[in-house]
């Protein structure tokens, strides 16, 4: 919320008298929300220009009303879900089958797995599949130098089995590759920068070629260094990132895919990293594992917001 001075041009009742009144009570910006409305009105009544002050309070309240999201009822939500929140195929049949079609826009999907279990391959395949089939753009935030354009090209080349000539194939490949934007970030503050920039861009231009998929590979390598230690700032930053991602997903109809690694848990069974607080952030959590020696990965649901957990499927990674 902006300081009260900046609201003056739009709302005439919030003039300098009102601002002085607020300053006398210690209200500068958002502190207005912490104040009891009846007490405030009571204070305003005691001043000589009480009517004007009360008008100012009502106007400020209307500004506050505009700050939060509007109320929706069940039917509005359902319509929004049907019209805006499409399902994006990941390109891996096993995952698609498990998730009932693929990644859902507006949801944060997390893939957990030990190292070299195929998480990055799944991300690259999802990126190529969405960029090719759904004609939307993909934002790939790469934290561990794992983005490989050659691999994406091979995924794209694999799927198209019609006999194209070299020129057309090259054109398709160019289109697809230009739809995938890759950002390399190595610390959490750079990631915040990228996300805020993306939010600003999405809010200001609502045209064609909208971002449909956002991939963060891997989010745990950004957050693990700041967790633990002497302060709770790490937890707060982790929660902020989680909420920012969920906000981006819901308001701009983007599907978000993040990867996470595993750590040893009780009894030697590996559990997802990032702890208990992160557990309640993703909508869907999938556990990926790969048998040594072959390319068959098995994926199972750890948590899903509308399906029972424990369902499993397996698929093969080509190439």
């Amino acid at each position, binding site marked *: 919320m902006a300081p009260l001075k900046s609201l003056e041009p739009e709302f005439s009742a919030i003039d300098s008298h009102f601002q002085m009144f607020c300053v006398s009570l210690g209200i500068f910006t958002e502190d207005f*929300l912490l104040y009891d409305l009846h007490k405030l009105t009571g204070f305003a009544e005691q001043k000589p220009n009480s009517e004007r002050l009360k008008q100012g309070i009502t106007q400020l309240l209307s500004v506050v009303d505009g700050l939060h999201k509007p109320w929706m*009822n069940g039917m509005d939500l359902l319509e929004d879900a049907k019209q805006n929140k499409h399902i994006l195929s990941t390109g891996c049949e096993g995952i698609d089958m498990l998730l009932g079609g693929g990644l859902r826009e507006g949801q944060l999907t997390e893939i957990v797995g030990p190292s070299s279990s195929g998480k990055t391959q799944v991300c690259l395949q999802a990126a190529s599949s969405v960029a090719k089939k759904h004609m939307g753009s993909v934002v790939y935030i790469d934290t561990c130098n794992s983005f490989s354009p050659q691999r994406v090209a091979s995924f794209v080349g694999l799927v198209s089995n019609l006999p194209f000539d070299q020129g057309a194939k090259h054109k398709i490949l160019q289109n697809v590759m230009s739809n995938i934007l890759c950002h390399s970030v190595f610390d959490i503050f750079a990631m915040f920068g990228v996300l805020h920039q993306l939010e600003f861009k999405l809010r200001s231009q609502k045209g064609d070629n909208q971002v449909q998929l956002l991939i963060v590979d891997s989010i745990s390598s950004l957050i693990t260094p700041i967790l633990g230690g002497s302060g709770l700032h790490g937890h707060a930053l982790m929660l902020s990132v989680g*909420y920012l991602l969920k*906000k981006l997903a819901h308001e701009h109809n983007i599907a978000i895919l993040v990867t996470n690694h595993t750590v040893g848990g009780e009894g030697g069974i590996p559990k997802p990293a990032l702890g208990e607080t992160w557990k309640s952030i993703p909508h869907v959590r999938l556990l990926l594992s790969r048998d040594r020696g072959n390319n068959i990965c098995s994926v199972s649901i750890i948590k899903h917001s509308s399906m029972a957990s424990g369902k499993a499927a397996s698929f093969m990674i080509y190439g």
Partner: protein
Amino acid sequence: MPTSAKWWIDGDESAAEMLARVSAERSVSLLPPPLHRLPLRVGNVVELVGPSPSAKTLILIQAAINTILPSEWNGVHYGGLERSVMFIDLDCRFDILCLSEMLKHRIMNLNGSMNKMNQDQEDIGMQNFDTRRKSNIAYDEELYTLCMRRFLYVRCYDSFEFLSTLKTMHCHLQKEKEVKHSSIHLLMIDRKSLSLQSVFETVVQEIRKLVQVHPMLVIATKTTTFGDRNFANEAHRKYLPDTLDFRNAATNTRQLPYQENMPSVWQSFVTHRVHVRPSDHVTIVDRQNHSLYLSEWLLPSLSYLDKFIVQDGGVFLHN
């Protein structure tokens, strides 16, 4: 103005009159299982605690469905309260499809059982049955839409948005009352990981004022962290001792204690507390494996555990 001393000593109403008035205005109702052990009335604040995942949001959805269904519709007894519910999503993870599936399931179950009863009793011919079945499905849609419209939803991404929602809720509720002639009976706050540390007092104050003007039942969820002792110890060191109220509650039948770190203003606001958690047992119902969850009333402390399972139609008790 009556000035006699006798008028001052005579009460406004007798105890019987007051009891009759209060039971009519603030009636007692039973929530669906597993919260069914105690009758709850408007003005109570129920806190649902448990580790993640333990079906807390599903329990909230089930309570919501119970409230939005009418008690009777076209001859079928649904047993609902026919009031609106308000769901404040601080977790930003609510899936409307989950609510919609559970509602459809419930309507079809109750409708289906009614249909079967009618057919058995009256022995109708095939033609009659078809037309009746078609008209029943049409009624389902109307009933479904009506119920979905009674479900109101707001999403808040941080504590200030939550505060602004609470401040402006009074006007919105007034408008709803005028438009729909039915008031809100249930307020659900789904909060798993949002930190409200700095604004707890204001939040409690605002909810208290709201409940006074619009009598409703409040259910809030909260995640507990099992054995996350390091985190809790650090929190204790960093925060001032008067804002956090630590309680190591080791119940007498459980080995693992759970820690609660909520400010005392919130703890004195909550009137009932239920603890849910997954158990290690798996039961077989309808030839499918379901994991068993336990629920226990902590405040007031009842000495037995309820066991329940999660199925497509909702949360069901299991003995």
